């Protein structure tokens, strides 16, 4: 294992975060705070409790997931796309480093940033609404699993994209709508039966549901199904990345 190479990539990517602190950390925190103001305070004050917790408190896990999902994808996709765009990928490909180590460096850094961001948003939420976490270990497990899985997904997008437009396309057109429709701001049990069934096809539902369960023991689906779905998505992403490196897709051809 080339630990020094993994460390070099990881620290290089983390250094980029500190260089672009405003864009990486401050901006998502500001937008999440705005969500609290709009949905939590303004609209939430007119909504009664959802499944036993106040609306403002109810949306906290969903809002954290919303940021973690989008930032994981953005961090990882940009992390690998930029060396491709700038041409510096030649150095990664010619270094004595395995594909697994490359992924570990890039995805590890992207996931770390997202986890830090998720925890910052959690702390920010504590300023707006009363919070309690019933299963902190499971909360962290869901947070880490989601950050890693969607960083892998972002890594795939970064390899696939051959322009900045494509880099934005999947997150904007697929991930954001799925996240909004995945129960960030509501329980899918509030939907009519037909739409409830449709909502269960949305993989993000399982992530948010599991994450919310770790906070309040409120879940749209069983936590074990949530963790199973997250792991399944993680394995699918790993399989695609394995195929990318085996074939050299958009890297070595």
């Amino acid at each position, binding site marked *: 294992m080339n630990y*020094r190479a993994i460390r*070099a990539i990881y620290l290089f990517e983390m250094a980029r975060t500190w260089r672009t602190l405003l864009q990486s950390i401050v901006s998502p925190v500001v937008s999440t705070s705005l969500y609290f103001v709009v949905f939590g305070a303004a609209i939430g004050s007119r909504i009664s409790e959802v499944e036993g917790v106040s609306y403002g408190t109810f949306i906290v896990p969903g809002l954290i997931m919303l940021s973690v999902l989008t930032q994981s994808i953005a961090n990882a996709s940009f992390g690998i796309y930029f060396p491709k765009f700038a*041409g510096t990928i*030649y150095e990664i490909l*010619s270094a*004595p*480093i395995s594909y697994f180590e490359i992924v570990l460096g890039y995805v590890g850094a992207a996931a770390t940033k997202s986890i830090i961001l998720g925890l910052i948003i959690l702390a920010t939420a504590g300023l707006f609404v009363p919070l309690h976490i019933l299963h902190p270990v499971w909360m962290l497990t869901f947070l880490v699993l989601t950050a890693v899985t969607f960083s892998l997904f972002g890594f795939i997008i970064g390899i696939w994209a051959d322009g900045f437009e494509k880099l934005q396309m999947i997150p904007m057109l697929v991930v954001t709508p799925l996240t909004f429709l995945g129960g960030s701001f509501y329980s899918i049990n509030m939907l009519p039966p037909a739409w409830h069934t449709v909502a269960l096809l949305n993989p993000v539902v399982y992530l948010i549901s599991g994450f919310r369960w770790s906070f309040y023991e409120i879940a749209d689906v069983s936590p074990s199904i949530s963790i199973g779905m997250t792991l399944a998505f993680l394995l699918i992403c790993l399989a695609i990345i394995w195929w990318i490196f085996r074939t050299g897709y958009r890297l*070595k*051809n």
Partner: protein
Amino acid sequence: MSSIISVANLSKTYGSGFKALKNVNLDIKRGEIFALLGPNGAGKTTLISIICGIANPSEGQVIVGGENIQTSYRKARSLIGLVPQELHTDAFETVWATVSFSRGLFGKPKNPAHIEKVLKDLSLWDKKDNKIITLSGGMKRRVMIAKALSHEPQVLFLDEPTAGVDVELRKGMWEVVRTLQQSGVTIILTTHYIEEAEEMADRIGVINKGEIVLVEDKATLMQKLGKKRLTLHLQGKLDVLPDSLAHYKLDLCDSGATLVYDYDTKGDRTGITSLLSDLRNAGIRFNDLDTTQSSLEDIFVDLVRTS
């Protein structure tokens, strides 16, 4: 001298069906400076990319320092430093950070003394804290060389190292390359500047349309394929050559004012003595004469044309 790189039956066909390399066989000797010449699209960069692990070969194998680049890629790649043709740099990093990053990427422990030496050798020490975006093109090129040398490679690939670099800087770069060779590094360079190969290389390979056309010691190549030209500046203009000189294949140039005679340097007899004697017998006199040797560029152009 033993081989440090051995390329055997190497072919590369891109997805579009374009054959960039066709059954290439090549050995690079340890410690030499090898110049790979070829026109645009000849396959130079593809060959380097495969050896360095950036592109996958379609067929064949490459051994670097006794290690197969595919089955033992870690050991093979750790021996190689690559300076690509384009100026690919991390614009917002400092010189020190980007060179240190390269060393880490190649699995080497931190060694600030080595990085300092590399930067000083390349006249980059006073720029070590500058962001790369603030550097000139020539400096960026040197940063890329520093990155390639950061992990102490045994083989250094320089793909068009002096492209777009001014004459003074180019000569400085040649000095750097010579110093590296003296320290035991094997250097493979591709170039469009024939004078660069002529100036620096121990051996020269010519690649055209994905095939190695020739590999030869530079001196032998010059001797084998180099032609000399004798130019005689006549006292009076000639309209036609006398029949007694017909078998010399002379060219009458400058409206009959000069006679040009090409001869082979590898031949035992150049024919100059008998030519001068026959000229005197024919009553043709000359004011001056000069001889020139064909350059590597002439040889290269001839080779590419005939291949």
